């Protein structure tokens, strides 16, 4: 591989890593802070993509679709947390797995009823339709770079929120000791509802801004769920910083794995996960108990 194609593949890796981070960040928040294994995370991603398709069709603009769709995802998140998830905090993980697996089935079926089985696409917003020439015959779409910038912004925003704000402090406190935080007079139920809604909104948001690239079709959330779990486990459960590093690592492993080791491309990311876990069983940035 010559140097220029190495650089292009590195760009592909980073760009893919950003996308993965955006999806995985919501999963790691819910997983780490609330202790909930949310298998429906991929379904939220799919729901976001369908909302983008539907709302962009109604309003004619992806921006408007995102502005309408994200609050909708927050509402859906709160509704699901209050009506279902909140009853299982004290229960074993197995109950949560069963419940959120049920949610996948319900959300997938809802999608089939509302939008049918067709394949749809969402147009790239006018102002990001250009592309930048890379080599003689390859160009890079501006929209992909824009998504990377958005993901970077979300990463920064999440970091600041968790590290620097009152809400972030409460969330961190609730994660490390639920009882103690409650004893200090903090309404932990409300905090958990916020975190779950935030996680759902992040998944939905990545589905929305990813929709013009990925196209919109039934079952699109399943694949993304698996790879999100890989990212979260590598990074350390509950660590947003870990999710970022994990996403970059998987982006690199996946991209270069496909190019350099095509015969085993499908297992490269799992091999990376296994190696990381052998070295650090709790993930790169996992809490050491």
């Amino acid at each position, binding site marked *: 591989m010559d140097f220029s194609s190495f650089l292009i593949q590195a760009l592909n890796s980073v760009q893919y890593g950003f996308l993965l981070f955006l999806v995985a960040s919501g999963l790691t928040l819910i997983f780490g802070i609330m202790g909930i294994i949310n298998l429906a995370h991929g379904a939220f991603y799919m729901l976001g993509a369908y909302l983008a398709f539907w709302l962009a069709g109604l309003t004619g603009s992806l921006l408007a679709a995102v502005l309408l769709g994200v609050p909708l995802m927050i509402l859906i998140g709160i509704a699901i947390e209050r009506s279902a998830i909140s009853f299982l905090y004290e229960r074993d993980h197995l109950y949560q797995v069963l419940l959120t697996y049920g949610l996948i089935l319900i959300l*997938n079926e809802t999608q089939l009823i509302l939008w049918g089985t067709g394949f749809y696409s969402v147009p790239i917003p006018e102002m990001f339709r250009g592309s930048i020439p890379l080599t003689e015959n390859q160009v890079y779409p501006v929209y992909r770079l824009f998504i990377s910038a958005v993901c970077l912004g979300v990463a920064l925003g999440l970091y600041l929120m968790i590290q620097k704000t009152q809400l972030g402090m409460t969330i961190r406190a609730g994660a490390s000791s639920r009882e103690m935080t409650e004893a200090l007079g903090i309404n932990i139920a409300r905090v958990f509802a916020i975190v779950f809604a935030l996680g759902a909104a992040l998944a939905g948001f990545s589905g929305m801004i990813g929709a013009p690239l990925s*196209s919109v079709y039934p079952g699109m959330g399943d694949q993304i769920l698996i790879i999100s779990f890989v990212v979260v486990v590598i990074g350390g459960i509950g660590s947003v910083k870990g999710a970022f590093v994990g996403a970059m690592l998987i982006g690199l492993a996946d991209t270069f794995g496909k190019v350099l080791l095509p015969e085993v491309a499908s297992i490269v990311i799992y091999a990376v996960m296994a190696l990381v876990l052998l070295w650090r069983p709790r993930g790169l940035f996992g809490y050491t108990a």
Partner: protein
Amino acid sequence: MKKHNPNGISRRTLLTGAAAAGGIAAVSSFIPTRFAIGGQHKVKIGILLPYSGTYAMLGNSITNALKLRIEENGGMLGGREVEYVAIDSEMSVPKTPTNTNKLVGKEKVDFLIGPVHSGIAQAMAKIVGGDQGPIMIVPNAGSNLVTGPLCAPNIFRASFSNWQPAWPCGEVMANDGHKKIVTITWGYAAGKQMMAAGRDNFAEHGGSSIKDILVPFPDVEFQAHLSEIANLDPDAVFAFFSGGGAVKFVKDYAAAGLKDNIPLYGPGFLTEGVSKAQGAAAEGIKTTLHYAANLDNAANKRFRAAYKEAFDADANVFSVQGYDTGSLLISAMDAVEGDTGATGDLIQTLEAAQLTDSPRGAWTMSKAHNPIQDIYLRQVENGVNLVKGVAAAALEDPAAGCKMA
């Protein structure tokens, strides 16, 4: 004997209804006759197709058109009413033995229709192939093995073998003056078989493939491979993807700027049923397939109009395959006057089948029980796959390894 078991039939009916797009119609057509007294048994048709996930569209298209064809025949097969038992295959190979046995062993279906997925087709063929199983008609899955080493007297195909839509494309690329290509497809049975067929025929016409890229199924992250293709700079790219993967690949290919420099070819599934979602990215792509929307024959026009009216959706190659499956059932059951026990006669009729009024054009059954059919050259214009000619006339699958051929 019709058993009046509310827990059995009505629940299954509901499941069928939930699964199939025309579910409501199915439920209402069932319920009144459940209590009908006397008369013959209904012909029981077991269906194993995907009704959820990425390929739900294919399962629905096939089921809709199959029922449409039988409705056109007065809802009867050989003078008997029809009962459908549909199971969602969930595109799961591991669940296939259970699902197949449920239809064959428990439901004792007279005919087995399915599947979409090549791996499932191979698993089903291993279970039902032979003298004991019911007659199975494959309405999509193209695995070469099903009408090759796994071929059996009671297994028929109304669709294509993976070899068929891919092979002529090799010649098309060579005729367009290309010398070196890159192939790219998902690394699963259908992908590998189509890639091999297209590449082999391209080689026979003096070209060569400089790289065969296998993307892990069902991965849709193509960016790394697109950069690789740009770097290799071939004359053309031969690609097989379908469904959501086809939409994304074609769009990514155009977005990476490759479309204008390196033309894209492939088996027709690359643009079939998805060209609207692909939009401008699909314009000009040449593919080969056994069907195209604008085929100029009366049967096609009639079928497309009827399908549109019944389901408010455009017919595609999958619905054509479902429709022809219905035609096969009708001709076979007419020949035996509804006697599903006359397996030998049923098989003989199906082997001699001549579908002269199929929407895809006339076709006949090969000795290996696979359609001998024309493969058309199509090109996407304004979002529609338009016929540009016949890429291979009356193409017969080589059926390597089939003892009947």
